[in-house]
């Protein structure tokens, strides 16, 4: 029996982990993700899961221990954020390079300096090219659902890659929202038994993991990784279809909201999408054909499908909750632009940087952006491609 509950995003992630019942979790506390492991260790303490914890002395060791556990041959999960992810960055590449199905819940948070503990996508964007699969969640419900599906995707025999499931730090991680669980029995049956591939603990068949690979072979391993990445969207959709059967909730690679007939559109990830949808409704009521695209699977980025979904628009604004300091545009903007570049007729693109370090994203910021898109759609004039919004000038 599924039930409606009022819980925080962090608890939603912890509950999904409880259902998945990992064999081992290695973790280190960090705001705003600490709560995930606090809740989870209480499940361990009360024997609600079979999990053995490794409470390490750093995130680097947490991910290293997860790698050791995963190679040994069992289900492994962890949680982190921000500086923690920055510290484990080296190990993130190793987890994916060794093709280990580790699942990590992330309460997305800004990176230092200046020190800031609030919601922002800088940490996720920092691990963008680490070879992991990335999901971003709008609310606690999506966090729970994505986390449950993450185990299936990570452990899929055609994939065997680590998965990150993000939700916005504090905004989602600490807010209480109404959501619906999948009951334990159904959830456990959905996630299924872990199947080991070349486990290190199989002492009768000794394996060596982590060889030195030189110029003659390195590219072949990278190409193989790229090839696996290409299979991910198909598996994500396959798992989503199965998940719909048990939950009634439908997921794609991204969510399209009033987008089919839209002339202008906003692309925005995670919690800010909720606010934006409300504003879109008020503009729609006034007859403005505006829609929204909310990325869910961020890595691998579904360039083709996203291009198809947005190509008919006259103007598109991409909202980034992180910036790339290279004099360039926000990371999501760069990806969406790439998705549209190949079309002869494509929307005019603008980029707004918003909500850094937990700065509130308010309806007036969405209105401001939509008004600008209306003007661009009309006269084609762009005053500046990239702009910080919600900042004191």
């Amino acid at each position: 029996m599924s039930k409606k509950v009022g819980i925080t995003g962090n608890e939603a992630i912890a509950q999904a982990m409880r259902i998945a019942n990992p064999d081992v979790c290695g973790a280190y506390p960090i705001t705003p993700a600490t709560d995930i492991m606090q809740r989870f260790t209480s499940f361990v303490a009360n024997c609600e899961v079979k999990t053995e914890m490794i409470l390490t002395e750093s995130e680097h060791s947490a991910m290293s221990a997860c790698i050791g556990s995963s190679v040994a041959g069992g289900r492994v999960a962890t949680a982190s954020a921000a500086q923690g992810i920055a510290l484990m960055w080296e190990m993130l590449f190793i987890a994916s390079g060794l093709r280990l199905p580790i699942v990590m819940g992330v309460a997305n948070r800004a990176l230092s300096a200046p020190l800031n503990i609030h919601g922002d996508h800088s940490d996720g964007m920092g691990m963008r090219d680490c070879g992991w699969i990335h999901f971003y969640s709008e609310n606690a419900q999506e966090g729970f659902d994505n986390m449950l599906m993450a185990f299936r995707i990570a452990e899929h025999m055609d994939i065997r890659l680590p998965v990150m499931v993000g939700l916005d730090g504090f905004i989602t991680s600490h807010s209480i929202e109404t959501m619906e669980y999948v009951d334990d029995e159904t959830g456990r049956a959905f996630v299924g038994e872990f199947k080991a591939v070349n486990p290190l603990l199989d002492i009768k068949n000794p394996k060596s993991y982590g060889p030195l690979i030189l110029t003659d072979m390195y590219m072949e391993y990278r190409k193989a990784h790229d090839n696996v990445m290409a299979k991910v969207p198909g598996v994500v959709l396959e798992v989503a279809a199965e998940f719909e059967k048990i939950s009634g909730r439908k997921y794609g690679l991204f969510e399209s909201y009033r987008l089919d007939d839209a002339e202008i559109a906003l692309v925005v990830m995670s919690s800010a999408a909720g606010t934006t949808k409300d504003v879109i409704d008020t503009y729609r009521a006034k007859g403005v054909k505006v829609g929204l695209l909310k990325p869910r699977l961020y890595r691998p980025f579904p360039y083709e499908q996203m291009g198809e979904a947005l190509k008919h628009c006259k103007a598109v604004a991409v909202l980034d909750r992180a910036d790339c300091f290279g004099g360039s545009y926000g990371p999501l903007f760069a990806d969406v632009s790439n998705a549209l570049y190949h079309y002869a007729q494509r929307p005019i693109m603008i980029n707004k940087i918003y909500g850094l370090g937990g700065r509130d994203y308010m309806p007036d910021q969405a209105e401001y952006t939509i008004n600008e898109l209306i003007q661009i759609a009309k006269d084609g004039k762009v005053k500046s491609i990239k702009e910080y919004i919600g900042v004191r000038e």
Partner: protein
Amino acid sequence: MKTWKEVNPGAVILEPGSARKFKTGSWRAMRPKWIEENCIHCLLCWVYCPDMSVKVKDGKREQFDYDFCKGCGLCALECPGKKGQKAIVMEQEGN
């Protein structure tokens, strides 16, 4: 050489001890020579050899494994020999 379609996922090596296929004997500039009559079969050369290149059968020393011996000379230095006569001496490779 393998193509990207043939490499093992995660670069795992499934054949234990496959390094035996990689012969290091060609590194040798000096060659150890075993003088059997001076050998007391103490097996110190066997236990100290960094390249597992001293063959032993039923607790008795046998010939060097020249496929792998790198010619470091450690065995010759450590060899106690018999009555002051070394059971291993180093010679120039190729002589």
